[in-house]
């Protein structure tokens, strides 16, 4: 009853206004080519925080809910047509590129939208249960997070299988051909991990831009290699079909949503693990095979990852800060009660509905752009926006880091290894630091 009274109170209508505003902003944010959401929101909030005096904390949170929910649903569109901004998106982008190549990009985006809505509904349904079991889960797993991350790393590396098609009479030739891909994967992971240690210990980014120190790394590892590939490889994308309906059944929706939810929740709960990694593990755990299932489950996974990590922060008394946005809003949030949690769930549902309604027109707009302007030029323009943007926020030091990261980011692209290995940039240093061996490694590398 108290929850209903809270939700139906007209005094809270302003929160819906700010949530709606957040969804609209997220449209613009997700349109910015190849940039990671948390960096963009970080900059955005710096501007917004100037209005902090006139905005109540819950209004700011409503704005953030709108932005993160909207972004998690709408970012699939520019990522599909202009390039992924982070690892969570690049996991999806290769299968999605195949759909685009067949003129079915719109359909794949709508499938991710359905998956995202399924994920949001599951989050809302399970929100009361989180209050019951999350404290227990946190208490059990807290001392064990480092080896859980270690297991994620081990699985990522061990689960990449050889791709070589050499048919030589010589066994060793075939072996080396197969291991070329695996070797590149392992090298990518280690090199990006090394870069992660360097950036965390001695970043070249000026101190005043410290909050953006990871931006050049992500842009270099994920965004620029994708844009370069597009510029080199792709001519015009084929005409995109605007479907009147999509082929789906409830079984597929339930399986996709369930698998995606598991991956997204794992990624939201375990620090540093992204939707891409979570999605891979959940996909294997639930033995996904259908292409539509993968695309839809990815939509769920990504949304649950972004929104779920923010939702966990609002569970009263849990103090579970996961994901960049939770860290960003920490200074403005003093007390979290059941009321804020219930409001979060309500605003999340509202934002998801609104973002889903915007998905089709937003997709049509992006298709219109890529049909009017050659894909080559779209990628060139995106590149011309990204590089100066990195310079503006991180200066020459940032550009230097971005250049090194681009070199590493191109490795999996050139050798068809998993791009997920690039997540070594965060997984390796964070895992080793959490286990308490960070200083030893940094000393060994001469970083301290």
């Amino acid at each position: 009853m108290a929850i209903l009274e809270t939700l139906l109170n007209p005094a809270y209508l302003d929160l819906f206004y700010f949530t709606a505003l957040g969804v609209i902003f997220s449209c613009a944010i997700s349109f910015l080519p190849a940039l990671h959401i948390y960096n963009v929101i970080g900059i955005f909030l710096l501007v917004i925080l100037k209005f902090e005096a006139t905005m109540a904390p819950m209004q700011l949170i409503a704005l953030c809910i709108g932005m993160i929910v909207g972004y998690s649903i709408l970012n699939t569109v520019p990522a599909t047509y202009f390039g992924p901004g982070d690892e969570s998106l690049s996991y999806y982008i290769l299968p999605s590129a195949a759909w685009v190549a067949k003129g079915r990009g719109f359909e794949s985006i709508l499938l991710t939208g359905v998956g995202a809505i399924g994920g949001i509904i599951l989050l809302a349904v399970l929100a009361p249960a989180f209050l019951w079991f999350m404290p227990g889960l946190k208490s059990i797993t807290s001392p064990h997070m480092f080896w859980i991350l270690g297991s994620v790393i081990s699985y990522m590396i061990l689960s990449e299988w050889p791709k070589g098609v050499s048919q030589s009479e010589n066994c060793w030739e075939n072996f080396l051909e197969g291991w070329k891909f695996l070797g590149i994967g392992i090298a990518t992971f280690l090199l990006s991990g090394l870069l992660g240690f360097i950036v965390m210990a001695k970043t070249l980014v000026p101190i005043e831009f410290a909050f953006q120190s990871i931006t050049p790394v992500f842009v270099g590892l994920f965004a620029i290699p994708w844009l370069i590939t597009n510029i080199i490889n792709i001519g015009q994308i084929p005409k995109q079909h605007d479907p009147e309906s999509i082929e789906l059944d409830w079984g597929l929706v339930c399986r996709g949503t369930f698998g995606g939810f598991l991956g997204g929740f794992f990624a939201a709960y375990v620090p540093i693990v992204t939707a891409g990694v979570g999605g891979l593990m959940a996909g294997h755990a639930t033995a996904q095979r259908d292409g539509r299932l993968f695309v839809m489950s990815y939509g769920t996974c990504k949304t649950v990852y972004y929104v779920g990590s923010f939702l966990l922060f609002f569970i009263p008394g849990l103090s579970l800060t996961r994901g960049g946005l939770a860290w960003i809003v920490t200074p403005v949030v003093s007390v979290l009660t059941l009321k804020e949690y219930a409001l979060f769930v309500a605003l999340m549902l509202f934002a998801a509905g609104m973002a889903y309604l915007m998905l089709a027109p937003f997709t049509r707009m992006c298709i219109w752009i890529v049909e009017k302007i050659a894909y080559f030029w779209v990628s060139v323009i995106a590149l011309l926006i990204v590089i100066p943007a990195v310079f503006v926020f991180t200066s020459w030091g940032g550009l230097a880091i971005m250049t090194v990261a681009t070199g590493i980011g191109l490795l999996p692209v050139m050798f068809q290894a998993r791009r997920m290995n690039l997540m070594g940039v965060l997984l390796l240093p964070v895992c080793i630091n959490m286990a308490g061996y960070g200083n030893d490694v940094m000393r060994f590398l001469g970083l301290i």
Partner: protein
Amino acid sequence: MKGFTHFISGIAVASFFPQAVHMASQEQSFILCLGGIFGIMPDTLDFKFAKYFHKSDFEIKPDPNNLDAMVIAETVAKAIRKAEQEGRGTVQLHTMQLGSNLWRSYTLAFDSATSEVVVDIGPEVDTGQVPFEGTELKDPTKAHARVKVESQFFQQFDKKSQIAIMSGPCFEFVKRGEGKIEIVFLPWHRTWSHSFTLGMLIAVLVGLFTFFMVPEGPNPELYSIPRWMLYPLIILFGSMVHIIEDSTGFMGNNLFYPFTKDRTNGLGLMSAAEAIPNFLFVWTSIICILYNLDRFRWAPESTPPGIENPTTFFFWFYAIPLAVMAYFFFKGKKAKGKDKDKGKGKGKPYSSDFDSATSVERETDASVI
């Protein structure tokens, strides 16, 4: 089973050792990961090593510019004839890559009713195995071939094998009782790597090393197993759980290699790539891990448990999900049975069984084979 299933089952097994859980929480040890690594190790050894060093008696590399199904079928028949005379014969079939995303497909089947090797040249396909219409061979004499062999043959998977993308499959033909020829799919898989013998050997070697290198940890009086012995035991049980899980499928393992020569058949309870059985093992492992981490937490008298009531925990988080999985599993089986009956009536192929030679070649996670 999926690689992830083996991996997490290995971790679950490791979590049953209280000392390992204490080492993880108190000494920042990665010892629990060892269970996962050795859980997936048998497939790693097969698909990253053994596969490359297996020598076949015959290799089939069809010429895309001079396609002839008869040439392929004859070569397979030669391998069968070799088995008739010498007891064993192997053949490796290769794919035909035409472009970066273009392949020519063909299928191989063994018609046990007529003792014929059947080969059909299929259309061109992309890497997603989507066929390109109109690329089929026009000449039926080149596109289809049947070659009769003397012996009768039998196989675990009575299905067509499609050879299209990446690397092709390998078959071994083994002469059995009454002169019948057994067709063994991927003869290099699930042999020495999936044996108790190898698990034991690695455990003994690691045990020798840890016996001399690993000192006794703090509070040894709390544990019944010395610390050095934990490592080989986790390795042994991690690899054993892989073998046990694989035995629930159709292909089986060679448990006592080199003392036994061939793979035994699996129990055939479930197919390796089926979603629900895989998830059942994964979920059981997650529940075991959480329960073990909680009950073996350090200083239980001063740290409140995460699971306050184990009965409630197992009811809500295990019994209920288990019931739901069982419902969908048997519902799916029933539907599959109906499809099969319908297919029989209309002469349609059966719906694909994941453990079959046909579907595994499309599998991205090799460990599912």
